[in-house]
């Protein structure tokens, strides 16, 4: 029976992996992800979850083992953060290239240096182009639901790609809040058994990850790109089935109060709820502001972003980036938004802001400042190329 309990988001994610009845967990502890794998280790040790828990000496090995396990046909889960993901990086790319549907819970954390264990999106942005499906969760319930759905998406025979569920370190991972947890019987039939068409099997030997000569490599990459683009229809179908069956709706792009909004803030992750709260408060003071969240980061939902940001009365789009592309053209998310709007006639002004780096709280006034920068840009008609870092001491 589904029941609502007060539970830490990290524990809820581990419970989602257990609900999916994972066969293999391969992970190395790193703050703020640790509680997830600790809880899975407990579940395995206590005999509640019948899985192989592979303890490893590094994240590079954690994902290597997960990749191998996944290719034998085992449902596989891993989890990491920041430096752990950086150490995994070589295998991050290989996992998607070898089409292993590993599910990773990424507790988003800043990258060193200076050493910083707190939340921002530097880690996920560093693997933007590695071919993983990447989805953001905004609260513990979403983290639970999306982790569970990730297996169904990644393991779909038309997809066979790894899936990364992003959720903010500490401000989400370590928060106890109400979550509706499923019982096994509630989800009966939702998640089909995982079957890889070429799994490693001594009775039916194949060679995986062979040399790809220049004559072959391009075709493998094209195939991979088509696969992640095509995964979109599976993602939508899984979200739809989940909503029909369990009542909670998820979309590639989420919108809030944009019908009459002139300025909208584009967000990702758990700051979305706070931005919506600010919009509600400021609407009482006559501000027509709204929020658009890019939940699905890869494959990037160009059409959805384009249509959301050109709907209604939107004149200015302020994109909140939680990482920096050093020396790049603009914010990382902002560049994607601009390119989604590039071909649109009379497109809204797009400006970029960066905030909440390395765990610095984004305050109410900071959100207001972001929207006000949008209003300023509208008044002056100036669309700065560079991002403004909110609250940096000058």
């Amino acid at each position, binding site marked *: 029976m589904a029941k609502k309990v007060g539970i830490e988001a990290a524990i809820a994610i581990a419970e989602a992996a257990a609900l999916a009845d994972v066969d293999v967990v391969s992970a190395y502890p790193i703050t703020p992800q640790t509680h997830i794998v600790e809880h899975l280790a407990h579940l395995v040790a206590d005999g509640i979850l019948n899985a192989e828990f592979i303890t490893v000496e590094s994240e590079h090995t954690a994902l290597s083992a997960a990749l191998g396990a996944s290719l034998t046909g085992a449902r596989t889960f891993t989890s990491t953060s920041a430096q752990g993901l950086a150490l995994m990086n070589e295998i991050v790319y290989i996992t998607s290239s070898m089409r292993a549907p590993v599910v990773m819970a990424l507790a988003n954390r800043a990258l060193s240096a200076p050493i910083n264990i707190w939340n921002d999106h530097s880690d996920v942005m560093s693997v933007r182009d590695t071919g993983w499906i990447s989805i953001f969760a905004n609260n513990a319930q979403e983290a639970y639901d999306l982790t569970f759905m990730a297996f169904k998406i990644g393991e779909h025979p038309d997809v066979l790609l790894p899936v990364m569920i992003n959720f903010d370190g500490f401000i989400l991972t370590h928060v106890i809040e109400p979550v509706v947890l499923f019982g096994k019987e509630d989800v009966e039939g939702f998640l089909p058994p995982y079957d890889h068409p070429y799994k490693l099997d001594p009775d039916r*030997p194949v060679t995986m990850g*062979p040399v790809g000569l220049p004559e072959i490599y391009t075709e493998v990459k094209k195939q991979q790109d088509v696969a992640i683009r095509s995964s979109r229809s599976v993602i939508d179908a899984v979200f739809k089935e989940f909503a029909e069956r369990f009542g909670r709706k998820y979309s590639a792009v989420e919108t809030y109060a944009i019908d009459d909004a002139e300025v909208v803030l584009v967000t990702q992750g758990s700051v979305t709820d706070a931005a919506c709260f600010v919009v509600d408060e400021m609407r009482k003071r006559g501000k027509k502001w709204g929020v658009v969240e890019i939940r699905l980061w890869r494959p990037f939902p160009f059409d959805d972003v384009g249509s959301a940001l050109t709907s209604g009365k939107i004149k200015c789009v302020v994109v909140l980036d939680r990482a920096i592309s050093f020396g790049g053209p603009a914010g990382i998310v902002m560049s994607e938004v601009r390119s989604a709007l590039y071909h649109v006639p009379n497109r809204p002004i797009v400006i970029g802001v960066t905030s909440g780096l390395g765990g610095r709280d984004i305050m109410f006034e900071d959100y207001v400042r972001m929207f006000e920068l949008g209003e300023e840009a509208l008044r002056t008609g100036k669309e700065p190329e560079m991002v403004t870092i909110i609250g940096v001491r000058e």
Partner: protein
Amino acid sequence: MRKLPTWKELTLAGIITEAGNSVEYKTGNWRTLTPVVNYDECIKCGVCWSFCPEYAWEEGEDSFFKLNTDYCKGCGICAVECPRKCIKMVEL
């Protein structure tokens, strides 16, 4: 020339489904010099077999190692490594 597969025809991630298909790749015609063994001196140690990059030495019924010329590319590693120096590289 063999037609290369399109991205649609290619197996998932370029996986090779015919296990052990390297036997189809015959490197014997690369050879200019061929190893010839003086079996009177040979002690059946198998050093030629273990060093051969193409697995061209095969152990016979009599435990002597015989050359499979389909795969020997004439590199001469066996002749260098042979502890009895009883393999000579010759032009045939």
